[in-house]
């Protein structure tokens, strides 16, 4: 289930600011209350894919350790995509919540 929402998760993790791959994974763990413990290697193909579709940009920096590090950041398009996907998710989540509790949904899910 997580796999289908990986792009949204990565975009949301980067909404706090530019970060390298390891920091993105840490941010996902932290913000999900350690609930999302993804196989770390899956994040990198997702970062590359999102960069290729223009939702992220990246550049090399030199870390304190002296190693080269690739830092990713959201583009304007990425921010817009995150806003849209967040809205879709919230509608969907509200609809499922209502379904499970028996209450009437407030909006139409996508």
């Amino acid at each position, binding site marked *: 289930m997580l796999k289908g929402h990986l792009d949204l998760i990565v975009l949301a993790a980067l909404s706090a600011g530019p970060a390298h791959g390891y920091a993105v994974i840490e941010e996902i763990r932290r913000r999900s209350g350690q609930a999302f413990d993804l196989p770390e290697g899956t994040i990198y193909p997702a970062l590359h894919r999102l960069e*290729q579709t223009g939702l992220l940009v990246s550049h090399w920096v030199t870390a304190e350790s002296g*190693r080269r590090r690739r830092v990713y950041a959201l583009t304007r398009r990425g921010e817009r995509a995150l806003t849209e996907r967040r809205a879709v998710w919230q509608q969907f989540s509200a609809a499922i919540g209502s379904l499970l509790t028996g209450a009437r949904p407030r909006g139409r899910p996508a």
Partner: protein
Amino acid sequence: MISQYLESLAAALSFDRSLSRRVRQEVEDHLWGAVAADPRGDGLETERSAIAKFGDPQRIAAQFAMVSLARRTKEAGIALILVIAGVFITMKTRIAWYAVMQCAVSDDIRAVLGIVGSIDRYAFWLSVIIGIGGWAYVCGRGIPAEFHPRYRNQLRRFRWLCTAATGALIVSVISDALLTALRLPGAELSAESLLPIFSIAIEVACAGLLVFKIRGITQRETSTAALLLKT
């Protein structure tokens, strides 16, 4: 241990050298970062744990193969447009050269030139229409996270469009070569025949580049499917 892992990951990504280099550096930074953050400190056990959390290199390479294939496909779409534009500019330059050199054409070959010229025009504009269609088709689509049949169908359709556009372009280039051969005076090389011959060589190289690109994406698609099947 981390070096060995990086070697095997780089080997699994050998289908794309620039991607392999970049991923290797990123993963190296990641793994050493994970080791440094581990409260158990440096050591083989910490390195083993960091590698285990990162995942199987073949599986990761298979996911990157998808990204690489998508990039190659988009590059082929752009190459298609650039090559067609290049052939157009070359053709126009050659025609301008004929005008400047005031190349005369005898009446008996004028009729042949007309027929071949028509074939050339229709084939070229057909390649333009199909090429733009192919480029728009591939550039307007995102990159899926998985290599599902729908994506494979999209790739197949794009390959067909590319092949059709290239086929039409090859007909146009052959017609251009024929027109040039008919227009050139005699078999001797002269200063005024150098530019037309050179322009034909450019057109042939452009068409060859497209064939090479189509072959490249076909091979990449096959290797990506094989890699995904293995994992």
